[in-house]
């Protein structure tokens, strides 16, 4: 099997990233989702970008095509309960101030973004409301309440194209993220690019390498049966190469998130996606 693939690749004579993503197309609840699009101009080494969905097995893909089958929706429902739940000294729920959750349509596509000179992610915006406006405890970055809420807010943008700003105020953060993406770390001494740019489409032992896109976050992973945050995923990849991860919510991961979001410009938001 592996042999055949190698021979085929050798025969076609493709050099670097061969793009062994499949040719399936995704539609969720009747809405068509863009999983492949021309790479944004700033990407020098890649012509076409693909959603991670295109690299998953048919069974895993199917779970994302129907909201009843998608196990992530159990958590999105929990997000809906939290939305209406009064919490904190101000005696408010999210819904006390935000009339309709649907009003957040489009927000996912534009994050992270710079507010008053600071790079902010969805988690930052949510926690700002919790601490400053509800006088409640902030939620932990990658824990269940936060991922339920980022899932609920994210799904309002499902099907809309990723579209983060990378110029102006955002430029220095974007540059920093780009540098981190190409910097080798860990005892195995690898950069994100070594796997997700140079070798996407290849098998690395049992894993089919994708481009490491973040358009589907938070993602439900079969491996741990819960929603996973973007920074949680970065952390996992760093540990796999035996590197000390940066802090979730810290400047490095926020910059990396902006850079990765910009490598997915034009892909549809797939939140909440299903991965293995």
């Amino acid at each position, binding site marked *: 099997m592996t042999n055949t693939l190698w021979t085929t690749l050798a025969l076609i004579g493709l050099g670097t990233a061969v793009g062994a993503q499949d040719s399936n197309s995704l539609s969720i609840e009747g809405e068509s989702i863009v999983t492949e699009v021309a790479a944004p101009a700033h990407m020098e080494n890649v012509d076409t970008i693909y959603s991670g969905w295109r690299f998953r097995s048919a069974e895993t893909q199917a779970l994302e095509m129907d909201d009843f089958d998608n196990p992530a929706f159990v958590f999105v429902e929990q997000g809906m309960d939290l939305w209406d739940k009064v919490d904190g000294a101000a005696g408010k729920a999210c819904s006390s101030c935000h009339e309709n959750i649907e009003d957040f349509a489009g927000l996912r596509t534009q994050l992270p973004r710079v507010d008053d000179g600071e790079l902010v992610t969805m988690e930052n915006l949510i926690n700002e409301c919790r601490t400053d406006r509800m006088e409640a405890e902030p939620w932990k970055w990658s824990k269940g309440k936060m991922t339920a809420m980022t899932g609920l807010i994210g799904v309002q943008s499902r099907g809309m194209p990723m579209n983060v700003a990378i110029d102006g105020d955002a430029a220095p953060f974007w540059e920093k993220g780009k540098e981190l993406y190409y910097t080798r770390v*860990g*005892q195995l*001494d690898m950069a994100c690019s070594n796997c997700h740019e140079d070798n996407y489409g290849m*098998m690395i032992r049992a894993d089919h390498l994708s481009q490491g896109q973040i358009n589907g976050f938070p993602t439900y992973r079969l491996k741990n049966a819960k929603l996973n945050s973007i920074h949680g995923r970065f952390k996992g990849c760093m540990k796999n190469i035996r590197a*000390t991860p940066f802090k979730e919510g810290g400047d490095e991961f926020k910059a990396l998130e902006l850079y990765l979001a910009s490598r997915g410009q034009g892909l549809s938001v797939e939140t909440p996606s299903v991965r293995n």
Partner: protein
Amino acid sequence: MKRALILTLCTAFGATAVAAGDVKPADVVYEDGVVSASLTGQAGDAVNGRMVFANRKQGNCLACHANSDMPEEGFHGEVGPMMDGVGERWTEAELRGIVSNSKMVFEGTIMPAFYIDSGYERPLDKFAGQSILSAQQVEDIIAYLLTLKDS
């Protein structure tokens, strides 16, 4: 028997403890990427080398290299070339260079250097200052690779 004892000791000190008499990672002499001198002064054990090749916590070479000699292993990677016939393509000294520090041979490669203990950034604490494999494990892998002939 003796070998089993040595292995046990190695494990007790962490897989990459440098045994007395081994060439230390920083002292390995590369000539155009080739390392002529054995790292241990002892012959490698191909049987153990085969295990180190597949073991996910040791060489994990199979993550990137398919190898027809290991049909019992379910998943073979495709990131690097197949290992079939590698013992004919390269000499022992060349293989020692490739496994110890592939970057000396293949510029910019994704393949990790298996016998260096510095020069990488932000390692997890438990791996800091250590090489991925011990000198003996490198020699064992080389002995194993030399058994992989095309015919």
